[in-house]
């Protein structure tokens, strides 16, 4: 006891400093431990509440595609997020006509009102769940409200709102989205493409092409990547205008990937000699898609390119030519002197299942 007392009352500055720092740390540690235990107990309580909720509602939602009970259990305020989460979960896994009953159930539970309440929450997750639900409910009357969220700087909020609009009316949403395709460079291409694919490519592609031609320059590269993801193609006129007005290598290589018009072949052939290898890669693929027998020498030249990827794409293109069968490919192989070209063609043939 005397030692402890002497220690605490020490005049040594080092000891005093160390002591008070340690006391502070002990205090924080004890508080953390208490907090962790409390948190764990709260979590246990929440889990049991969640389990109670799931035991009631999961069977209802699981059977929903076939039958909806005449009477539904009451929902309290604290169940709101849970019901939205569960309902959205089933919406994601149920497909086709079975979603009809899910929408009816959503209507009976007044999920649209519950979802709207979440939109004004400070908690971002609640906001996102609310937006998601209104989109899944295809709540047309909430179009203006959802439209406001698109303008938010936060990428996920903006994109989820956009997704909701696409679910309500894809064609109308596309008109809303088109200006953002260029300005919102924060939108991940993959996620935008997954939205655009809700519209058939024969409808979406002309609009994307038109939008690109009207806004030539700014964002064209991004738009081209989206078009590629949506399986769009460029015709001769568009391709010619694009490469003339925007002779940027990335634009050219992406545009080459979108060519499917055989009348464009004469415009593509010069790119087989381009100084940039990634353009030659795309030229090889494009020529392969459109080539006739007279263009085979061009592909064979590319097969002997100094760049591996050019050789690989040329080899793939050659093995996929409709007028060349396995036997002819074998004979062709024997005429090639370049070892690297032969190896590459051999690999491409093996990939096609040729012996």
């Amino acid at each position, binding site marked *: 006891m005397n030692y402890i007392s002497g220690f605490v009352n020490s005049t040594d500055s*080092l000891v005093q400093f160390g002591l008070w720092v340690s006391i502070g*740390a002990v205090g924080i540690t004890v508080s*953390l431990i208490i907090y962790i235990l409390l948190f*764990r107990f709260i979590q*246990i309580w929440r889990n049991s509440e969640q389990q109670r909720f799931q035991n009631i509602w999961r069977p209802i939602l699981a059977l929903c595609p076939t039958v909806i009970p005449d009477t539904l259990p009451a929902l309290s305020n604290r169940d709101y997020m849970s019901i939205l989460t569960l309902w959205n979960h089933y919406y994601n896994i149920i497909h086709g006509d079975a979603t009809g009953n899910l929408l009816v159930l959503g209507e009976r539970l007044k999920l649209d009102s519950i979802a709207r309440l979440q939109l004004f929450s400070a908690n971002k997750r609640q906001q996102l769940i609310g937006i998601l639900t209104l989109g899944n409910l295809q709540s047309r009357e909430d179009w203006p409200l959802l439209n406001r969220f698109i303008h938010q700087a936060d990428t996920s909020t903006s994109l989820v709102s956009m997704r909701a609009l696409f679910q309500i009316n894809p064609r109308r949403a596309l008109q809303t989205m088109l200006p953002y395709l260029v300005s919102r460079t924060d939108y991940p291409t993959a996620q935008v493409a997954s939205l655009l694919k809700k519209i058939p490519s024969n409808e979406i592609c002309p609009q994307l092409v038109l939008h690109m031609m009207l806004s030539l320059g700014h964002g064209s590269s991004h738009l081209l990547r989206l078009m590629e993801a949506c399986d769009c193609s460029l015709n001769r006129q568009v391709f010619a205008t694009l490469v003339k007005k925007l002779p940027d290598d990335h634009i050219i290589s992406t545009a080459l990937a979108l060519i499917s018009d055989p009348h464009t072949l004469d415009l593509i052939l010069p790119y087989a000699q381009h100084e940039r290898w990634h353009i030659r890669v795309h030229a090889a693929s494009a020529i392969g898609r459109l080539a006739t027998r007279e263009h085979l020498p061009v592909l064979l030249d590319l097969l002997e390119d100094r760049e591996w990827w050019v050789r690989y794409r040329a080899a793939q293109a050659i093995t996929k030519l409709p007028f060349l069968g396995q036997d002819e490919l074998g004979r062709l192989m024997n005429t090639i002197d370049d070892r690297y070209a032969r*190896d590459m063609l051999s690999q491409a043939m*093996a990939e096609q299942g040729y012996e």
Partner: protein
Amino acid sequence: MSEYIRIFEWLFLSYFIILNVGYIGLNFIALLYINRYINVLSSDSMPSSLGGMEPPVSILVPAYNEEAGIVASVHAMLQLHYPEFEILVINDGSTDDTLKSLVEEFELRPFPEATRLRLETQDIHAVYLSNKYPNLRVVDKQNGGKADSLNAGINVCRFPLFCVVDADSIMQHNSLQQVVQPFIENPLTIAAGGTIRISNGCTVERGFLSQVSLPRNPLVLVQIVEYLRAFLFGRMGWAPLNALLIISGAFGVFKKEAVILAGGYRANTVGEDMELVVRMHRIMRQQGKPYSITFVPDPICWTEAPGDLASLRSQRVRWQRGLAESLTLNLSLLFNPRGGTVGWLAFPYMVIFELLGPFLEVAGYLFFFSGLIFGFINTDAAVIFFIAAFVFGLLLSAVALLLEEISFHVYPKIRHTLILFLAVMMENFGYRQLNSFWRLEGMLQWMLGKKGSWGSIKRVGHGKKKLAEKES
């Protein structure tokens, strides 16, 4: 003389306090980041808005004498939930039946691969393709070590992203989906790591974790706390600053072109995983290219931790050597004008507290112990030093438990939380001190130029399954 002793007393105490204040700063960043991540990014009810647009990934599995477990590991990986991926096992000149067991189980046949040799490696004997699983290939090569195997895998792999996985790592069905998110959300991402959790005590069925629990082995229990500290706030604190210097070799995803630009894995290091990441930072910053190296806090990969002192010592010595190699091979990053948060925060931090730390820590312990024995320091100073070290150690581990509790709470029972508290206490009575000595040993080995090796780790597997020993 007493003045010098005083200076040392303040030096050691200040070192501990500054070190721990730095950790607390990382805690704070990690807390903010994980709060945001849990609330938004990992929401289970958010739709998978990718719709099959995830980029394809090559999973590289270097294998040396893994005949006991490689077939099961590959079977598990084939069940991953991901739209497009390939598995590339690199048989690094195994002397057992690793290749034979793969050939038989997966009906492998030689494939005329026109390999693009962008990184120098030992000779590749053959590439095999599976008749049963078209997305499985095996590269059979001359022995060259893990780094060499990975470079060979990079040469052969087809996709723009590759995932490095140890042969005995246990992934989750959605591991790839989670670790690929940063690449989708930010096209500047060139590398992403995931949290590695300890699988000891857990139940594994058909290559996947079916039940999470804690081991009985106290040595492993303290490692669990240590991993929580290292991963949850150590890496999550640095990642938002784009200053993460390590992505574990047990599980990480990289952009192939970025790795090739950096020169691939360095073959003559034991810490090839960290050295690559540090080098990637250096190269990208030197070239002034924007990039991101980040971290996914979800627990997505599980690995077995050493359960005996000898194996643990071997591991920790090797890690410290790897750290020393990684930092000294990229020393130009330190306070580099273009270094940014890496050169001015993370790198100096690593040098002072991780690289030189063992010297100061061990010297501190020796100084105070010998001071007490020989009476040249005052008892109060010694006592306060040990109290401060102990208390801060407790605090940091408690924060790691808090982060775990508010985020993923992987351990479901309250009993687990209490056991981990005990482990937090135990950690400070001997384990930390041992670690300091092992790290010092690693530093001395590195300084003396002793040739590095992986050593051997005794693995007991999960349930009754025994895994092969790893040898270099």
